[in-house]
Structure formats: C-alpha cells, structure tokens
C-alpha cells in the first residue's frame, strides 16, 4: 500500500498510515513515551521536549510528537541514552516547579508527578531561586490558575484557540518570563473552559468547585452520561466514599464528545450533593406537607390518581431514563387508565407530534454525530447549537475550521455559529415554514418568492453549497418542527430538500436536534400522547401542555416525574395557577421543587448519579448510566417507585432488575431490538439507522 509505511521501533516492526506521528506508532506497539505538551487532539507544538527519541539517520534526537513516520525508519526508545534525555528533561521542568504536591489537587493524578516517578532524576543539581507568582489567580469563577506550577505546555491556550476558537487565555511576556494570562478585564468565560483543567498536565489550572474537595486516591470513578443536553457526552462521575460527587470528568468517546465536555455539563455536579435533598416521602395533611412512609404516600397518590381515571395525566421527563419513562407510561396507561401521557409540557402545534412520529418511524432521522466532520456541507436549522448542544458546536467548528467544510446556518438571531457560516440565513422568527420552503424550492430548482426575510442571493448561495457537496448533514431543531407554526410544513420541506439532493446523487444524513439527554428515548418508549412504544398509534391523549391547560376541568389529577413546570421560563404564572386547580398532584423529584410545593404527595427520587439505566441521545445512540453513589435517605429510583405503586395497585409489574425493563423495551420497540446492557457497551450503541 502506498499510503502505509513500515517502521521499526525498539526492534518491533509496525505498519501505519502515512503521516502518523512516531509517538502514535509507538503507542500502538505499547511503547510508553512520556509527554507534556502533546495531546492527540491538539496540533503538535514540540514545546516540552519530553518525548525525545533517537531515530537512526538523524544526528540529533527527535521529538516523537511532531515527527512523522517514514518508510524504513528505525526508532530507539528504550535505550539508556534516551532515558538519560528524559531524565534531564524532567530535571529541567522541575527547576521552576514549586513541588507543593501535598497541597496540590493534581497530586496523585499528575502527569508531571507520574513521569518524574517513572523517568525522573532522584534529585536536582540546580541551586536556583524559583519563579514566584501570586497564586492562585482566578481566571473566572470556575477556573483558577497557579502560575508557579505551570510548565508552559500551552495545552490550555491551544485548546481554546484550536478547538473552542475562544482564545480567552494567552501567553503573556516572553522567554523566561512567559506566563499564562487572560486579557485585562475579560475573564475566562469560554463555555468550554473546564477542558483546560483536564488538559493541564500539572496542577496549574484548577476547578474552583473541586479545589481541596478530595484527593485523587480516595476517589471512585463511575462511567456515566451527562444528563444536561441531547448530546449525551460520556463522563465519569468521581465521588468520595460513595457519598459525595466531587466532579465530572470527560470520558473519551470519539463518536460523541471526543475528549471534551462543556462547562454547563461539567460543573453541574452540585445539585446531587444538595443538602436539601428529599429523604422521605411527603403527604399534604391539614394543608401542610408532612413526612410519611412510602406505603402511606403511595396509597394516597394511587387513590387520587385512580379516582380521576381517564381524567388523570402523567408527565415524565426527557432527563429520566428509558426504563423509568417506559414504566411510567405503562403505569399511566395500564394501572391508572389514562391516555394522557407525555414527556414534556412544551406547547406543540396541532398534528406536529404525529408528523414527527411518522418521520421518526420511517427513519428519516439517521444522522450520526461523527459524520458531521465527514460531510462536506452542514445545513443547520433552527438551533443555537452552541447553547443548546454545546459539544456539537465543537464538531461543527472542527468541520469548518480544521477540515474546511461548509456550514449553512439558519437561525433568526446572529448566534455564535453565524460567523462560521457561508451563508448565514437569518429568517424571521415565526416564518420557519416559509423559509424552509424557499430553501427547498431553490435546491429543487422550483421558482419562489422571498418572504421569510432572507435575501434571495443568500438562499441561492446556500442551495449551491448544498448541491455541490458530496455529502450533506442536515441538522434540524425539534422545536422548529413541533413548536413553529405550520411545523409540519417544515418537515415536508426538509424531506423535499433531502430528496432533491439525493436525486442529484448527494448523500444526505438528517439529524433531529433534541435538547434533553433522553428526549429521543422518551418518545421511543411511548411516553407520547397517541403513540405506544415504537410509535404504534394508540387512542388520542392530551399533551402535557393541554393537561396543564385543562387542569381543573378535563384533568383533575397529575403525576409529574422529574419536571418543574412551576419554574418554566415563559409560563410560570399560568402553570402555577393550573397546578393549584388539581385534586391530586403527585411530584416525583429529588428536591422540593417549586412544583413540589403545590403537590399533595411528594415522592423522593434518585438523581442520575444514583441510577442505573439508559439514555438515547440526539443521534439516537443508546448509552448507559450507572449508579455512582448510594441512595440518599429513603429516596428511591424512579423505576422502583413505579414498580411499588403498581404492585400496591395489584398490577403485575414484575421486574427484579432494571435490565429486565430494557429487555421488555427491546421486545416492544423495533429499533431497540437486541439491545441489552452488554450489547450497549462502554461507548453506547448507535440505533439511528435501524428500521
């Protein structure tokens, strides 16, 4: 193969693609080379010189992190000469290092410490006044910097520049006086700043939330999924003594989040440790919520719900597991006897949910996150991705900035991604249907009139960009289909765009952008009015919005699992008023939310950090979450609560393990066929293209 080269490292032969770096080839052979500045996802800079190796034919040692392999190259790593160089490199790095490991957060998981232990010198021969800086300096409310510990590997600066494209931090001064800094008066506000803490190979960048909270050796790690948005970034939950969650770290998944997390997800560990976590069920007696036993609380709840019967309703949550949401709709339908089930109380336009359901059922949405970078053009519709699904913002930046792909970005406001777009299409809010029809007409070559506020030449340019691509990713916000007026027409136009492109032999993948960590899963498992698991049509039911609207008339009892409508951004007052009209309000949550304050029964449930189960993300990848800490007080997992309520009602909800619920789902929902915990594996299983 002309695109492969064979080289020898420490006597072992290996064949790798052309352009591979020596260090990566060595890694494949299991040969360890210490690094500080090098990172697989960042451009090599060759700054720390730690990775020096000997390559035959070169008079001087070479940095393995920036040297590419060549045919017949002979590399020596494990030789006394190379080890000697590594040792002197570490000696250099330690000249100015404060060696305050006992009070450093990184101590115990510090590459500088680890490499010194493995390869470093026993002592230092330099008598020298170390550099001094004020420390630590807050770069923002979340990130602190200890400049004395910094070894100037520039990973942080490179990440912000290369990956996030938010160069908030930089190298000030020159030469021996170099240090990392922020610009005057401008804190480190990038929404990806936390990644630099993880990238920092020493304890120079620190999390203000984690600082002094735990030592690495008393931490247990649990693989899980970030519950904050539809991307489903892979994380580890780090906890102390199975009780306190101390931080979330990114877990590498090259198909979802690569090595990164956004700050919203990363720094959101505090609600789990909330001192006001509910530890016992509450029942309203004499107008007051008072502690009760589980049996008492569930009995009261059941009574109220069953009394309402078909006038009862259940609202689950896009942030709860597939298993919980599945059981919840089953319980509502079979035990309570109502068709009013939903996972959201968003207002949706008539018929849009049905249209969306059939599109999903027909596998119209088959987009893969990792293919964003493969396609040559990205059409992004109706979402401020940088805010809604932050990690996808990084994927798009990578596609546009690093790989030179084209972005067509359509959004009413000039959101962050607008500056990467060619063209940026700012349609009038409320004219989504007109706008998408115009775009579809342009792509299909049908004549049209500009009505939605976008200039004709911009639409034409967008259409040209899409038509001249070989592979197009279309990303559309679910809200653009469900909440927009005539959202059904938006969907039709999208189908038209996809068909027109396909007829021109352009490959197309379409991704539905959903906001919740398990929005897709909630729909899949039948927590939808009018649809059973797997989008099988059922008797009509009310949507969450309608249930609240009809509270006190058509609806007299509501069971809300993991949602807080009383704090809804736009409808707080209306929702609060509605909640007060109910004869029975059951709220299942981990703290006493604003909504729970109006409840007749409050059921303390687990957070995701105490829960086993699965989430299905925006690309329809099913991923596992695992319990990291013990349950708090008498709280219970959502699934257990429903199972108990069902059995109290005499129903046959016989599950001894969470996995049995998943098995039932996989037997009911066609796309989930064959899905088991094992089959999902550590990196999730992509289901998007399954019929």
């Amino acid at each position, binding site marked *: 193969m002309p695109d492969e080269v064979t080289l020898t490292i420490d006597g072992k032969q290996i064949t790798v693609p052309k352009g591979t770096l020596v260090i990566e080839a060595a890694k494949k052979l299991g040969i360890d080379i210490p690094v500080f500045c090098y990172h697989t996802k960042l451009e*090599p800079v060759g700054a720390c*010189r730690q990775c020096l190796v000997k390559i035959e034919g070169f008079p001087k040692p070479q940095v393995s992190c*920036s040297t590419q392999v060549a045919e017949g190259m002979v590399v020596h790593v494990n030789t006394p000469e190379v080890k000697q160089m590594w040792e002197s490199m570490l000696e250099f*790095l330690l000249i100015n290092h404060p060696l305050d490991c006992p009070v450093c957060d990184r101590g115990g998981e510090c590459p500088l410490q680890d490499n010194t232990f493995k390869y470093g010198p026993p002592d230092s021969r330099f008598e020298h006044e170390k550099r001094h800086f004020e420390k630590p300096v807050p770069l923002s409310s979340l990130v602190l910097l200890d400049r004395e510990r910094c070894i100037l590997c520039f990973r942080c600066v490179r990440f912000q520049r290369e990956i996030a494209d938010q160069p908030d931090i930089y190298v000030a001064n*020159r030469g*021996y006086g170099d240090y990392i800094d922020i610009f005057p008066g401008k804190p480190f506000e990038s929404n990806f700043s936390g990644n630099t803490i993880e990238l920092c190979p020493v304890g120079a960048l620190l999390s203000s939330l984690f600082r002094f909270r735990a030592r690495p050796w008393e931490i247990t790690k649990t693989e899980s999924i970030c519950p904050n948005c539809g991307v489903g970034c892979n994380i580890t939950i780090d906890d102390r003594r199975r009780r306190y969650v101390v931080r979330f770290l990114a877990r590498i998944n090259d198909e979802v989040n690569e090595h990164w997390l956004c700050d919203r997800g990363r720094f959101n560990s505090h609600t789990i440790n909330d001192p006001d976590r509910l530890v016992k069920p509450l029942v309203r007696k004499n107008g007051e919520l008072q502690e009760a036993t589980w049996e008492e609380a569930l009995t009261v709840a059941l009574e109220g719900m069953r009394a309402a019967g078909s006038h009862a309703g259940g609202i689950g949550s896009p942030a709860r597991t597939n298993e919980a949401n599945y059981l919840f709709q089953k319980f509502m339908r079979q035990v309570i006897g109502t068709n009013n089930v939903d996972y959201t109380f968003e207002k949706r336009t008539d018929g849009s949910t049905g249209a969306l359901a059939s599109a999903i059922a027909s596998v119209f949405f088959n987009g893969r996150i990792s293919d964003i970078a493969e396609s040559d053009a990205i059409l992004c519709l109706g979402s401020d991705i940088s805010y809604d699904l932050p990690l996808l913002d990084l994927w798009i930046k990578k596609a546009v900035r690093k790989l030179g792909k084209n972005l067509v970005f359509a959004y009413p406001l000039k959101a962050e991604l607008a500056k990467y777009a060619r063209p940026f299409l700012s349609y009038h809010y409320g004219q989504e249907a007109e706008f998408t029809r115009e775009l579809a007409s342009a792509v299909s070559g049908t004549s049209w009139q500009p009505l939605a506020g976008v200039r004709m030449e911009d639409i034409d340019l967008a259409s040209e960009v899409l038509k001249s691509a070989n592979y197009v990713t279309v990303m559309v916000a679910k809200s653009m289909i469900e909440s927009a007026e005539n959202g059904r027409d938006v969907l039709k136009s999208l189908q038209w765009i996809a068909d027109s492109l396909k007829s021109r032999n352009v490959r197309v993948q379409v991704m539905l952008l959903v906001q919740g960590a398990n929005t897709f899963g909630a729909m899949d498992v039948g927590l939808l009015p009018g649809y059973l698991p797997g989008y099988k049509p059922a008797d009509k039911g009310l949507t969450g919005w309608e249930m609240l609207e009809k509270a006190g008339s058509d609806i007299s009892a509501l069971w809300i699992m993991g949602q807080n409508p009383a704090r809804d951004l736009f409808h707080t007052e209306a929702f609060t008023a509605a909640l007060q009209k109910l004869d029975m309000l059951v709220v299942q949550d981990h703290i006493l939310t604003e909504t729970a304050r109006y409840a007749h029964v409050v059921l303390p449930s687990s957070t995701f950090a105490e829960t086993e189960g699965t989430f299905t993300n925006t690309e329809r990848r099913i991923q596992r979450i695992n319990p990291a800490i013990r349950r708090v007080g008498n709280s219970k997992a959502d699934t257990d609560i429903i199972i108990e309520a069902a059995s109290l009602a005499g129903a046959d909800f016989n599950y001894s393990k969470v996995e049995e619920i998943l098995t039932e789902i996989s037997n009911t929902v066609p796309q989930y066929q064959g899905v088991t915990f094992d089959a999902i594996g550590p990196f999730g299983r992509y289901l998007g293209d399954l019929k």
Partner: protein
Amino acid sequence: MTPVTKLSSPQELAEVKQKTLSALETGCTRVLVCGGTGCMANGAPAVMEALQKALDERNVPVRVDLVDDSKEGTVRLGYSGCPGFCQVGPIVRILPSDYFYIKVTPEDAAEIVEKTVQKGEVVDRLLFTDNDGKTYAKRNELPFYRDQVNVVLADSGIIEPGDIRDYIAKDGYKAIAEALFGMTSEAVIAEVTQSGLRGRGGGGFPTGVKWGFTQRVQSPKKYVVCNADEGDPGAFMDESIMEGNPHALLEGMVIAGYAIGADEGYIYVRAEYPLAITRLRTAIAQAEAANLLGDNILGSPFSFHIHIKEGAGAFVCGEETALISSIEGKRGMPRPKPPFPANSGLWGKPTVVNNVETFANVPKIILNGAEWFRSFGVEKSTGTKVFALTGAVVNTGLIEVPMGTTLGDVVFKIGGGIRTGKGFKAVQIGGPSGGCLTTEHIDLPLDYDSLKAAGAMVGSGGLVVMDEDTCMVEVARYFMQFTQKESCGKCVLCREGTKQMLALLEKIVGGEGTLEDIELLEELAVAVRDGSLCGLGKTAPNPVLSTLKYFRDEYLAHVVDKKCPAGECKAFKGYRIIEEKCKGCSLCARKCPVGAISGEPKQPYTIDQETCIKCGVCFDVCRFGAVEK
C-alpha cells in the same frame, strides 16, 4: 518623482540602460557621499550640504537629474550605499577617478571641489594612510579592499540607491528580462542549483534545491519571503545591501517568484532599520512605476507584488517559521518542522524564505551564469560571503571575500592584524549561534563545511576578532546573556537551559565556580543543543561548547586557580604593591578614590583588599611599576 515610467518590453529596459550610461559617461564627475547608516550618523549629511554649497559657490553646474546630459562637464552629487569601511567614515568617493576620501568633514568640501572636481587632483590628506605612512588614493588599492572580491556588494557604494536608473545602468533588472522572456521556471531553478548558491542566512541550505521543492508543490497561491530580520548583534550586511542596493534584492525576489510560481512577496525587515525601510519603499515605488514590479512585468504575463513587513526586532523572529507567524500577525514563535515552509508556509501556502544576501546574489547568477558564480569560492561553498569584521583588528567594516578565504587572510591581510599590538587570540564567528576559532585555525578556509567541522558556523557572518586581553569565558557569558534574553520561551530546554547556563557562567566569571559547574555546564549545553525546538536553542550553546573545547584551561583557571588569565574578569582583579619596587612616594595613596592604600612615606605602602574597589588607578599612576595586577 518616478525616474522611469512603464516599460513594456525588454527592449525598452535596454534603452533606459543605454540612455543612462551615455549620460553618465559624457564627462560627468560623480561625487558620492556614503549614505549608509554609519556615515549618516557620523556627519555625512553635513558633508553633503557643504559639498553642495562649495559647488554652488564656484558655479559648478550640478546635475539635479541623474540622466540630464544637456550640459557637458557637469557634476553629479549624491548619496551612495555603504562601501563597507565604516570605521573611516564619512567616506566620499569620486568617479570616474575612484579617489577614496576618508573621515571627510564639511571643512574639506571646498578643497575637494577645487582640487578634485575642478582640476582632477587628489587631496592627499584625505587619503587612507597605513601604519607605515603609505597613502592610497584609489579604493581598490587600499589594503582593506585589495583582497576582497565583490559580487553582492559590487554595485552598492558606486550607485545611488535612490535612483533606479543607476541600477539599470549596471545591468540591473536585465536578469528579470532574461528569465521572463528566455527561460522556463525550471531553467531558472536549474541555473541557481548549478551555481551552488547556498543560503546566506546561516543554515547554508542550497537555494536552488529549496526553490525546486516549492515549485513542485501544487498550489494556486505561493509566497516569496525575504528574511531581513538580521538579529545578530554586530551584523549589518543585510542592512547595508538594502540601503546600498535595494533593487538587487527586489530583482532577486521577482526571479524567485517566477521560479516557484508565486505572485506575492514579503520583506520582513526589522523596524530598527529605518533607512533601509525608506530606501526599500522608494525602490519598490520606482520599480512599480517602471513596470519591473507589479502586474505584467515588462509586458510579460508574469505579475509579482512585494510588501514590506516591519518586525519588532526579536532575534527569534529571524527563524523562518517564527518569521512567518509574525508576518501573519501572530506571536513570533517557531514551530516544529516539518511541515517546511516549502509545503506550508505563509498562511499555509507554499513559501520560499531566503535571506537578503541570498536574493541579492541571484540576478548576477542569472546574468553571468552558474559557471561564472562557481568560479568564486570552493567546491561546496561557491560565490562570496559578506562578513562584518569587528573587534581588535586594525581595519573593521563590511568585507566580501570568496568562500574559502582563510581566516588568516581575513584577519591579517584585510583586517590588517591586531590593532592593540597584542597577540591574536581568537575570533568569534557567526554571532551568538556561532563558535570560536583560534590561532590553530589561521589556515582554515571560511566556508560552510570547514567551519561546521571546527564547531563554528558561517551564521549571519559576524566576525569578531579578539586579542589576548579577551577572556573567553566572558565571551561565552556575553553571548549566553544575549540568547537567554532572546529565547522565545516556547520550548523547555531553551527557556530553562539558557537561564541555567547563564547562571553557571555568571558564577564562574564571578569567581564562585566549581569543577562540577563546568561539568554541568557542558552537560546542559549538549542537552540544549540536541533537544531544542528551533535553531536558536540548538545553536545557543555553541559559544559555550567551542570555548570549552579550545579554551578549557581558561575555565579551569577561573574555578581552580581563581584567576582570569586574560585579566578581564573583575572578580579576580586584585592590586598588590610589590615591596621591593615601592619607593614610598605615596602617589597611589593620594589618588585612590576610596582610601584603601596606606603606609609611611619612604616605606613600602600596602593596599587594603577589603576596601579596594579594583578601579586600577594605583596601577596606572605608579611610576615605578610597583603595583601589580
């Protein structure tokens, strides 16, 4: 004023040359005042003014325009570039007689006009006089110039850089015409390759080969970049070329552009060279007006534009990848190579980076051919090299010699030997990146490979001659201080290593050094040399390593005997009164500024070492040689 307007063919260029030549040859006397930075600072403008006045007073018709042949026997007064012998400036040259006047003052103007301009006589007292009292009237007779061979500097110093026609008259821009109308780009590259021209910026990479790489990379956009950062302290050859013959640089860049298929070039010049920048701007404007630069040069399909980028003057910005990132408006920091600029340079596009002197050689190669060029120099280092000769020699300045000229010839023939009458000790060649050569290298040919083998390098071409009073440890410390300050800080070895080496050297010259320090210094030097990212770090230890190699004794003397053999390092200076010689005259005691000397008259005096500040007054004033160092 644009001396030449739009030329649309090589013929029109040839006509300009003819016209200029005949105008200048019709009995015109040229009085050229050196307009180099050195002479300008030394009073050249006043001399120029005085000459103008003297001519006016005597009603000698002065040519306002260079090519104004309306009046015969007129005089042209103008600034030339630097002829190199800055030590004796301000210099005034008279053509065609080629009288070479040195240290000219405004008071000399009248005499120059009366005698030389009007009567053709020479003013003896303004001529160069050697140690034996012999005077030399013409430039080429001077010992300083006799053994030089001028290729790159041939025209600078004779032409007026401010007028493009003066350059055209010397066959300027003819190489462009020949290349654009008679050669393929491959042929241009082949000619340059065959000439053996190697990069004059220090690395010595074959220029033609570099161009070939860049030419073969497919890309609709490529760049030519001229490295005029010249950050080496004491080097000024590039500055001198840009001031004295800016068009040669422009012409070289256009040819490079044609060869590799680029249509745009940048000159990265340090902002501390304001005169060079002004001259370049004038030259670019004139070349553009003459259609020798810009769109469709000389009516050909080839277009090439040149921009000037002023650099803030960091030494590391002379490293090509740092230079490129500085032009891009980023922090000037080197990055690992590959990719080389030939593949991914300015704004990611294939780019050729060459030094000023390298470019300035190119037109001559195209005009006279590779064989002609190879006739200068030695097999693997062809052509000539410009050096900045400074230090303890009699004659200092800019010199140009064939590659392979021996060190002895440079120091003794051109340099005229050691000025101080002391013995020759060493030269430091290549500036802070170079190394030292000693008496054992007197016959060493100065070329890329011989120098490298000796642990030094051609580098930028700085050549500092040192006599016996120079401490080599101090030399190493001086250069280390420079590189330490200039390290960009990107890579650990250079950032921390230069700092540590400097600390050790300071310790040694400060009298606190130990044998372990020397060992550690050497170990560090090797590590930094072998492991640094860019040339700055890789070469920073050279002064240390080569002084350690040739003058280890001196290091040992500092740490073991606690002595500085050259007597330069202050820490070791101590003054003592030799009892037997002291007459007790008390002169030293009275002169000592801190009252460290005491004694009874007529009895030997003593110096209190605690109080002594080592100023050396006692040594200087003692009439009996009773004070020793």
